């Protein structure tokens, strides 16, 4: 899942990016409203963490403009302004949820997961395909009760495929949603990760879960 963090306080934005990265999300940072709109235009984010009080273009305006072009991106507002009017205005402009600063990081993660669940076909906090079970909260995967040890990036690839189960996902789309702007973007990267995931799956007896559709991508 790829997330854009829009926050003008550099120390806060960078810490959020590091924390989200550790949780297996691909995170980019924009320090003002203008940069946020450019990044949101270029990349297909699953979720945007948006501070309301931004230089250049105000957060509420950023929210409104992103909603005009992208309806499916989740938006989580961050605000130090705790007045009801501000929050109502933000939600009315298309934000899915809000969090008041200062907040607890685990709560931010929980709210991000909740918004991402709403976007997907299933609202279950635990993802399941046949006997393969993924717990995005704990970042753990199981097959028939046996744990599969995946790296955060491998987990993210598998999570994205499961969230889009039944649909063919291209290598480019995986790159877009699992890796952030700083990554070296080659489709080769996806191939290597896919190979490792399949190896680990077959170790626990889960063969043939992921199909390759030649020239188009992968499907679970």
């Amino acid at each position, binding site marked *: 899942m790829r997330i854009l963090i829009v926050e003008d306080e550099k*120390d806060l934005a960078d810490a959020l990016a590091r924390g989200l990265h550790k949780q297996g999300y691909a995170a980019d940072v924009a320090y003002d409203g203008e940069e946020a709109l450019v990044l949101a235009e270029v990349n297909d984010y699953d979720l945007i963490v948006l501070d309301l009080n931004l*230089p250049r273009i105000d957060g509420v305006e950023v929210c409104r403009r992103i909603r005009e072009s992208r309806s499916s991106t989740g938006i989580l507002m961050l605000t*130090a*302004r705790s007045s009801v009017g501000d929050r109502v205005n933000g939600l009315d402009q298309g934000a899915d949820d809000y969090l008041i600063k*200062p907040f607890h*990081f685990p709560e931010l993660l929980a709210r991000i997961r909740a918004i991402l669940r709403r976007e997907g076909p299933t609202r279950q906090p635990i993802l399941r395909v046949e006997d393969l079970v993924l717990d995005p909260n704990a970042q753990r995967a199981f097959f028939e009760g046996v744990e599969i040890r995946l790296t955060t990036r491998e987990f993210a690839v598998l999570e994205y495929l499961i969230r889009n189960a039944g649909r063919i996902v291209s290598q480019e789309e995986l790159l877009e949603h699992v890796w952030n702007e700083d990554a070296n973007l080659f489709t080769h990267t996806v191939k290597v990760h896919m190979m490792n995931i399949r190896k680990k799956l077959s170790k626990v007896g889960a063969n043939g879960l992921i199909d390759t559709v030649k020239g188009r991508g992968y499907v679970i």
Partner: protein
Amino acid sequence: MRLPAFAKTLRFKLTLWYVAIIILFGALFLVAVNLAMQQSVTGPPVFLSHPMAASQTPTEIYRLVRSTQLGLLRNYSLIGFAGLVVIGAVGGHFLSGRMLKPVDRVSSLAARISSTNLKERIGYEGPDDEIKRLADTFDDMLERLESAFEAQKQFIQDASHELRTPIAIAQTNIEVVEMEERPGARDYKRLIEVLKLSLDRMSKLSDNLLLLSEGGNDRSRWSVVDMSAVLDEVVEEAYAQAAAAHISLELERPSEGMHIMGDPLSMKQAVLNLVDNAVKYNRRGGWVKVSARSEHPLVIVQVEDSGGGISETDQQRVFDRFYRVDKSRSRAQGGSGLGLAIVRKIVEDHGGLVSVHSTLGEGSSFRIALPHHTPV
């Protein structure tokens, strides 16, 4: 019919009431005395009803008539007096109650008012008299109190909002490191750096809030201040900062005649804040000019810079608390958004004025005007 203004006053009404009462009393008294006299005149002659009437000399009869008449007069006037006391007490009680009723209303409302329900008003509707004036003055005072409380509330909200940001930064950074399974020395080092910066910001903010609340109000610290000496100190203090930013700092001031009455420390703070801003929001290789001159009866201090200037809309708000022209830049420079608000508070506490003239792209000029102090 329109009454003249004096006729509406309570004073006039009370006067009318008392005149009416006195007329009434006087009339009653006259009636009583007249009745007594009439009775003594029209009744049967006293000397006839007297047991020894037959043997009385004219002198004795005359005395008897006189004493009987005086006795009657005394009795009637005593009764009249008692009646007047009773009527006066009852009437006064009723009348003063009627007149003072609105005062009661004002005082019971005043007792109800607290900091939480300053919205209440007496809203007295009645003739334009002293009571109405009292009620209106009271309402005016409530109005002023309410807006002062509102301003205070807004200020506390702004200040707490300003405090939340460094707290959020510190908290998130701590929690992100906490979530790490095996945080390394680098993570801790970075965390400490961030925590230090956040603490700096919070302590600077609390210092500034204190400065802002104190201003230059404490008259016990006031003395004759030589603004030329203040400028010398400011320029000396700001010199290193300006040199580091490759900005030339010029000072132009007369050596005497620049005296004002005030708190030397807060005055220095005010000028220092202006110079600090002029250096911070300047271009590399730019200049800052600090000058003072006497324009009788004022002492003028001016701080000019070669920075980017301030737009017209921003100029109107730069002295507001927590207003920043360029938010990200101000924060990056460690600004609290209070510097110019402090300048204004200090200068106004000294009976002076601060103003700004600026053209975008050409720099800004801040001007402090203070009343000149002439030694006696």
